[in-house]
């Protein structure tokens, strides 16, 4: 009980900290309005580096990179933003525009779970928690009440939904989406520079990272082909992608 309360307090504190930390979006937009694209992007990127970035911040970074005509980076940020704002019509439109600007990027790799196209992991987790709370509390407080079946069903559905959310979070954190940027990435059969070349991913190709070995990342493309690419060849945005970044050894 004490642990649960402590976690709730921490969650509330994080929420309050987020409310208080709403400045960088506005600060960057002030530069943006003044036509200082690089400065705006720097403000937003600094904010994105210091904490878990919000969907709005990632969306704005995508717009900034799109304006700089770096479409692969724009897609990378919009793709990351979509995980946090799946029902944002502006974002969906921009992501489609960004993908349309790419040449030969191939099919993007799908979301880890289909429901992520509609809801975020956090939303599903909260729903599961709510159902678990309602069902569990009723059953716990009145264990001998007549006809407890609906409450047990609510409880069980809550547990299932929470399990889905946990599974989604695990997928996002362990197998994030990376986007090839800057130059075509040669996909090799092994994590060695002299391993056989299997195919080439063009800038903008959206792939799923599966494992890191030294300076190479094992990726799976949208058409289900696998191979190793150098760590710096693809950009991943979000907490799960940190382990696949070039600066993390």
């Amino acid at each position, binding site marked *: 009980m004490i642990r649960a309360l402590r976690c709730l307090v921490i969650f509330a504190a994080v929420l309050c900290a*987020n409310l208080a930390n709403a400045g960088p979006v506005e600060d960057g937009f002030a530069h943006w309005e003044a036509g200082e694209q690089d400065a705006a992007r720097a403000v937003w990127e600094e*904010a994105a580096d210091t904490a878990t970035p919000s969907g*709005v911040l990632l969306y704005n970074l995508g717009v900034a990179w799109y304006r700089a005509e770096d479409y692969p*980076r724009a897609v990378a940020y919009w793709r990351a933003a979509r995980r946090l704002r799946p029902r944002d019509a502006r974002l969906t439109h921009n992501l489609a525009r960004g993908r349309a600007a790419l040449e030969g990027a191939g099919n993007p790799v799908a979301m880890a779970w289909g429901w992520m196209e509609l809801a975020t*992991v956090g939303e599903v987790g909260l729903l599961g928690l709510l159902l678990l709370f309602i069902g569990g509390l009723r059953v716990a407080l009145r264990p001998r009440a007549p006809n407890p079946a609906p409450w047990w069903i609510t409880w069980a559905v809550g547990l299932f939904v929470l399990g889905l959310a946990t599974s989604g979070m695990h997928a996002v954190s362990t197998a994030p989406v990376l986007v090839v940027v800057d*130059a075509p990435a040669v996909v090799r059969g092994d994590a060695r520079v002299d391993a056989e070349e299997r195919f080439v991913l063009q800038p903008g190709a959206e792939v799923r990272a599966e494992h890191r070995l030294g300076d190479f990342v094992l990726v799976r493309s949208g058409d289900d082909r696998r191979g190793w690419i150098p760590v710096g060849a693809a950009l991943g945005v979000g907490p799960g992608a940190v382990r696949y970044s070039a600066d993390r050894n």
Partner: protein
Amino acid sequence: MVSTLWVLCLLVASAFGARVQVSVDDSQLEVGQSTKLHVTVVLSGGDGRVRGVPQVAAPESVVVASLGPTSFTQTTRGYTVTGVRFDYSVKALVEGPVTIDPVSVVVGRDTLQTDPLVLEVLPASAPPETQIVAQAGFAEETAWEGQVILYRYEVRSLVDLHRSRWSQLASDSLVRPRDGGPVRRQYVIEHPDGNFLVDLTLDPVIVAGSGDLELAPAVVIIEIPTASSARRDPWGLMGRTTRKTLATEATTLKVRPLPPAPEGFSGLVGEFDFAGEVDETAVVVGDSVNWTIRVRGDGTLEGFSLPEPIDTEAARMYDGSPVVSGGVEADRYHAQGSYARVVVPTTEGALALPPLEVITFSPAQGDYVTHRIALPEISVKPGKEGSGEVESFAVEPSTSEPELDEGQKVHDAYASGWATTPSLFWLLRGAGGLGVMLGIYPVLLWIREAVQRWEARREARNAPPPATPSQQLAVLPADPEARLAALDGVLRAALAKSGAVDEGALERGAAIDGLPFELAEQVRAVVRILERARFAGEAPPDDLDARVRAVVRTLEAA
């Protein structure tokens, strides 16, 4: 790691267009050793994109392979730079000097070139004689007061190392420079007699005192993963290690004091290069010219500033904020600084100012050196007067797209919103706590009830069979009322048993009517006696017990 040092070095240079630089983690390699080579492109606004991956041409004595590009955006002290860094793996095969040819990088429509890079490949050192060897000491035996030198911590091992921790370098005469800290490198040398791991840390320090500086032996604690733990825990989460503590030998550094300093000594000790450039060579009176003086050397720039600006009749001067960085690269300490001086010409004509003079101490020459940085010639024209209007030819910044159909535009950035999102870690930890409370507790409750039901069934199954009516008659209570109730109960039980019905569901009248006539009459008579004795207060006959026994036996027999 993005080569921060190079980025900072190129930071100011980016104001003059895209710049490219080549660097290497280790300029000295042993045969069989690999290192990383970086081609760093710093872009300024409007340069366009870097096209393709630059090709690095190298002789056959080394093998070069691309590891891919990494983009970066870096903000330092008010400057923001963006760029791309291309990483390559370089493996030395043959001993001797190796020259990497200039690398060409295509940025937009321009082709930029790096300087050539020289690597020195040394013969492969022999593997350590014992399993692990630790060494620590200065790279040089002598140093000058104020010089920056490197203290090397090195572990060579034939086995894999989990961790190594060195004791801190403790001496009042050694001070760490403000810019740049220790650099650690781990690499494997492929040797015919067996590959071995080198764990090297280079710690830059400023020598603050003079005389013989004696340093106590350095101590390193090494953790080696045990083979058995790797088998037990393939994920490495609970791996076990064995510890080994090694000590190096004590070292002595001879520190020479600086000779008497000339007037105007800048305080810089090391080999330094100075270069200056201006952003405009033709201006009008009153316009400003940015004169950038770049300093690079192997000493610290801590506390250094340009000589005080002195206004003349020809120009006024103002100093900007310097940008200084430093660190260990290619086995040497390097510091670089960019010092901005704004020159505002006040008279027309060719602007000629006396060169800046900076006096440094060169450890290689053992003497003071005067560097002169001349201001490039600037032509100053008369200023415009009267109109009071400023004509700007700067390109208006724009964040909008070119005119497109509505469906082809992308939506603009959001003006406001949260910058961060709550971490799901805390949410799911909270869910874990609540899940324990609300998810597990009902399950425990259900389990408890199920266990209770199971125990009740088990008790019922294991309970001794109920006593027969005859057995019940053997233990009648002595109290008269209780005795009458017990006799009534026994009779009722016997009736239920004879009718094969549950005692609780027995209807006594119907059960008696179902008996043979004579027996039914006997039972009715006994029942009447019992009821009168129990409820009407009549004294029971003395043979009541015997009559009940007889009826019960007959009922059981029936």
